[in-house]
């Protein structure tokens, strides 16, 4: 049932991925080593894990630009918990719980408060990131228990990191959920025409709330992974990530208008994106210049189909 346009998009992404591999391995002989590639995955796994539920949210016709701020808030909450002497499991629990709660706030604003998602999440983005700054100021939290590092720094089997393994598992689960179950079908319908979906008996607001909560939960998970990998928390953690995560989703072929997209596309886009940023990093290009690339990419990805359709 996938439209031909989407299959073409995914094939194009796959082609880009191959080109990247070829390009980078000619630039650097070390690129194709298993260790290098394994390191490269850290560039996208945390962002990609948030891109999965965000893709569902955008397909349902909503958006959440507060995801990076939720990561920051969750990280601060975890740091405070760790500073109180809590163990790894509790700290991780705090991270997930904070993310879930923040997602519920977004969901409540949109469904109960009837605030459009874009403004609601601009507001919560400011609120959550602001809370992180207000609590932490210019301090850094570092007292995490030793075993906490396993999330972000540990390896499951050989070169496959825990983060990568988690991403693979969730990508599969989300893929099946979205494309094969009736709830996934409902999500597509709600994005394509929320009014008709309501008239068809779907509990549209319940779905919206759930998707916001899910996005928050996974932002919390990303916070656990990122914080555990860095070993520290600053209020500026994950700054600018909302742009990159949204870019991953849109690059993956998810339509900004809702109702169309695929998890496979998002996974491919995450790989493309992660590899490029890793490669640019190898070439010592600073992050802020990379964000020019991300910004241009986001605009191109929505502009090109629009240009083509104009004819």
């Amino acid at each position, binding site marked *: *049932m996938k439209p031909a346009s989407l299959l073409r998009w995914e094939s194009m992404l796959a082609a880009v991925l191959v080109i990247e591999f070829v390009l980078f391995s000619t630039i650097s002989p070390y690129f194709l080593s298993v260790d290098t590639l394994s390191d490269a995955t850290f560039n996208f796994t945390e962002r990609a894990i948030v891109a999965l539920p965000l893709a569902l949210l955008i397909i349902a016709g909503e958006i959440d630009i507060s995801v990076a701020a939720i990561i920051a808030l969750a990280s601060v909450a975890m740091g405070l918990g760790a500073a109180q002497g809590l163990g790894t499991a509790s700290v991780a629990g705090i991270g997930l719980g904070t993310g879930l709660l923040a997602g519920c706030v977004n969901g409540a604003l949109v469904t109960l408060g009837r605030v459009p998602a874009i403004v609601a999440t601009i507001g919560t983005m400011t609120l959550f990131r602001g809370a992180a700054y207000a609590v932490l100021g210019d301090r850094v939290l570092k007292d995490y228990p030793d075993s906490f590092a396993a999330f972000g720094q540990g390896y499951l089997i050989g070169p496959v990191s825990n983060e990568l393994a988690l991403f693979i598992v969730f990508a599969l689960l989300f893929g099946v959920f979205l494309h094969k179950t009736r709830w996934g*079908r409902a999500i597509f319908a709600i994005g*394509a025409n929320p009014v008709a979906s309501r008239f068809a008996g779907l509990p549209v607001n319940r779905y919206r709330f759930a998707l916001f909560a899910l996005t928050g939960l996974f932002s919390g998970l990303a916070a656990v992974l990122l914080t555990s990998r860095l070993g520290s928390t600053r209020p500026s953690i994950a700054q600018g990530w909302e742009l990159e995560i949204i870019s991953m989703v849109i690059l993956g072929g998810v339509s900004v208008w809702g109702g169309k997209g695929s998890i496979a596309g998002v996974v491919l886009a995450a790989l493309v994106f992660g590899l490029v940023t890793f490669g640019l990093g190898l070439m010592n290009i600073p992050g802020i210049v990379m964000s020019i690339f991300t910004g241009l990419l986001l605009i191109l990805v929505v502009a090109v189909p629009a240009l083509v359709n104009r004819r």
Partner: protein
Amino acid sequence: MRKLRDAGCALLFISHKFDEIFELADRYAVFRDGVSISAGRVNEVTSEELISLMVGRPVEQLFPKVETNLGAELLRVEGLSRAGEFEDVSFALRSGEIVGLYGLVGAGRTELAQVLFGINAASGGTVSLAADVALVPEDRQSQGAVLPFSVSANMALPNLKALAPRGWCSAARESALARQWIERLGIKAQGPEQPVNSLSGGNQQKVVIAKWLARKPGVLILDEPTKGIDVGAKAAVHAVTSEFARAGGAVLMISSDLPEILGMSDRVLVMRRGRVRGEFVRAQATSENLLRAASDA
């Protein structure tokens, strides 16, 4: 419109409604499938001729209402109100009945339908149901169908739980359901995968009706079901509605088209400004009665 004409304006007035056309227009032009078919002076043509020009063939009975035996009560409404929209509405629907709901714009009929279906909540009164309610909404393009989706995806939407009881969707089952109804209603589509936005208005409406009939509801509410669709499809919709009633369902048909209401209904309820102002059984219902009840001070 007459004022504008007298002031020197030229008016191009697009309509399906014959009473308006014959009352207002000086000349007419008939289009079908994007091609201009015929044109002429209104006072030189009859409505039957216009109909056959529009459809391309003579059309048999437009209102195949069959007499049925009325059965058990499926829906009872007592003192139903929704603040600002309608108040103190009471009536009942019995199995086998087609009840017409007539009224002018702003009478509150669509709002009543939405409360009966469950999309909006009532502020007072009770609704007692002995069966499921289905609603074919007024605006088929934004409320009735998800236009970019295929026929089979649209049909599946209200039936997801039945088609995927444990969550797992099956394209085969959905296709089969769509094919079944394409045949039953005579939907002109190349197949279940055809996107609904490429179907004609009449066929789109058939899809909307089919998706609800597939749920096997007891009560079917139709809100302006034949608005803006060609005469052939109109006849098909009426046939399906009659068949549904004959098979034991109850129908509440909202319409602003007097011939349709008069032709299809066993009883007609007339609403004006949020209240039920009159009830007429088939034998008593005439255009004058209905119009008077709908607009009386």
